[in-house]
């Protein structure tokens, strides 16, 4: 098969996309199961794209960097004494803290304008921030695991790892967000 034939591209990407579709669908299901909360607090819907989007982007970048470093041999597929791996995860972590603080602040403003009151707005902002931190940590772990797996098995780091990471990021983002809101706001 030619490298860029239609058949080849379909053959290589289709199975991965099906897996991704299933994972993302379950993210939708999680969201669907909580229609009551969303009705009570429609602002949740506004929070879903940022938490998923940022989470997935940050982890895709991490995944690509890890794949390069693994193939070069700057990182070994192990968690022990990996200086370069730690530097990468630290950077990713710091980056997401910075971005999510900024987004949380915007949600605070939006909630305030929507007339939720200062106390409830702060709580909502914190809920979003904590949810995003938990989601990013979990997604990063998955990313590292998948990057190791793709290196040891010789899977395509771009066509397999990144789509799956983003799908997993979707489900983790939505789940963490809804749980956090349930705990903090109790709706």
């Amino acid at each position, binding site marked *: 098969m030619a490298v860029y034939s239609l058949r080849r591209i379909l053959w290589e990407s289709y199975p991965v996309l099906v897996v991704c579709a299933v994972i993302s669908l379950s993210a939708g299901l999680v969201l669907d199961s909580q229609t009551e909360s969303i009705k009570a607090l429609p602002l949740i819907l506004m929070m879903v794209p940022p938490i998923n989007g940022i989470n997935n982007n940050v982890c895709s970048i991490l995944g*690509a960097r890890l*794949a*390069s*470093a*693994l*193939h*070069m*041999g*700057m990182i*070994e*597929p192990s968690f022990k004494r990996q200086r370069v791996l730690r530097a990468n995860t630290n950077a990713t972590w710091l980056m997401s803290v910075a971005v999510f603080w900024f987004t949380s602040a915007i949600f605070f403003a939006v909630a305030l304008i929507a007339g939720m009151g200062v106390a409830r707005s702060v709580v909502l902002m914190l809920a979003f921030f904590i949810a995003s931190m938990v989601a990013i940590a979990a997604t990063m772990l998955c990313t590292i695991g998948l990057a190791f797996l793709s*290196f*040891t*098995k*010789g899977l395509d*780091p771009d066509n397999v790892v990144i789509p799956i990471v983003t799908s997993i990021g979707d489900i983790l983002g939505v789940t963490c967000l809804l749980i956090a809101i349930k705990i903090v706001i109790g709706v």
Partner: protein
Amino acid sequence: MKNITYRPSSVREILIEMKNTSDLMVDLAYAALMLENTEIAQRVHELERRMDDLMYRIRIMAAVAARNVNEAKKITGILQVASAAEAISNATGDMVDLILRGMEIHPVIREAIRCADEKIAVVGVQRGAMLTGKKFHELRLPSTIGVWALAAKRGKSWVVPPTRDTDVRAGDMLVVRGPSDGIGILCRMAGAHRKEEPIKGTLPLIQDSLSHMRDLTDAIVDLAYSSILLGSREVAEEVRGLEEEFDKLNYKLWLETLKAAKRERNIAQLNSVLQVVKCMEKISDAADSIVDVVLRGVEIHPVFARALSETDEQVTHVDVSKRSPLAGKTLGELNLWVAAGAYILVIKRGEHHIFEPTKDMKLMAGDSLIARGSYYGVQKLKKLAAG
């Protein structure tokens, strides 16, 4: 031909194996020529095939790893080094072909190899010697006496090269390389007498050039690796300079060989001299392609330094501190090659480099040394230099 299947070894791991293999192959090839030994020659051939395999693997891994122009640029330097290591291995393969094809080897080759700075010797281990029963990794020969074991013959079978866990038994014949004094110490440890065959010196000019060329190729290759490790233009230019010296000797040697051909009855034997020289030239050309990376100002990927610090024989950079016991002593007094198995390639003093330092060269505090040695040897040197 073997198919190339995916194996998860990184560019770094493959590069380490390639450098180790090509270093070993050079030593084995000279040992095979000197001893006219087909087993060692055979092993060199096997390693040559292994190197081909590794070259494919490193290209695959590098292609996957490169994700942007910057990274790709840094990786080309590494691929250049890898292909130089492969070129060196091909040259050694050609050298041992002389033996495997049953060609006559001129005695001057053997004499030239014996006259080079780094000696190759066969040491028979006697009953009750202190070496017996010990494993190679316990003996740490490279860092204690500067001697590396290349091959061991036990009964009729050969172990090429002996591994860490190979033990030494009475009756073993060890093929080793190292400084003359170090080999002397090893002979005592093995309870063996060191017998020096007298050198007949039938073709003194050819022998002289040839042994000098062997030393030069070693120095050129080591310096080439260090030039890239340190990103040093000066060292790279020195490699070019040595290369020129090599070419002059090469020219002289061809002339001498052709002159000798008029007198010599056995032309086939003389042909072997030219063949060996041709292979040495390929080795020095390979080193030249390594320094090309430095002279072009290609930034090298940091994985290279990591790889070079994990090879069997390492090239490294050591600073001599004020408190160091090395300061104020001459290289002859220190004899680091035997005492620590660390061979000093370059002394960097202030802005200028002293290449091929002589025995009466005094080390001073503040000097930077570029040295080659085993891991433990290099550690020893670093400790001494730190004081």
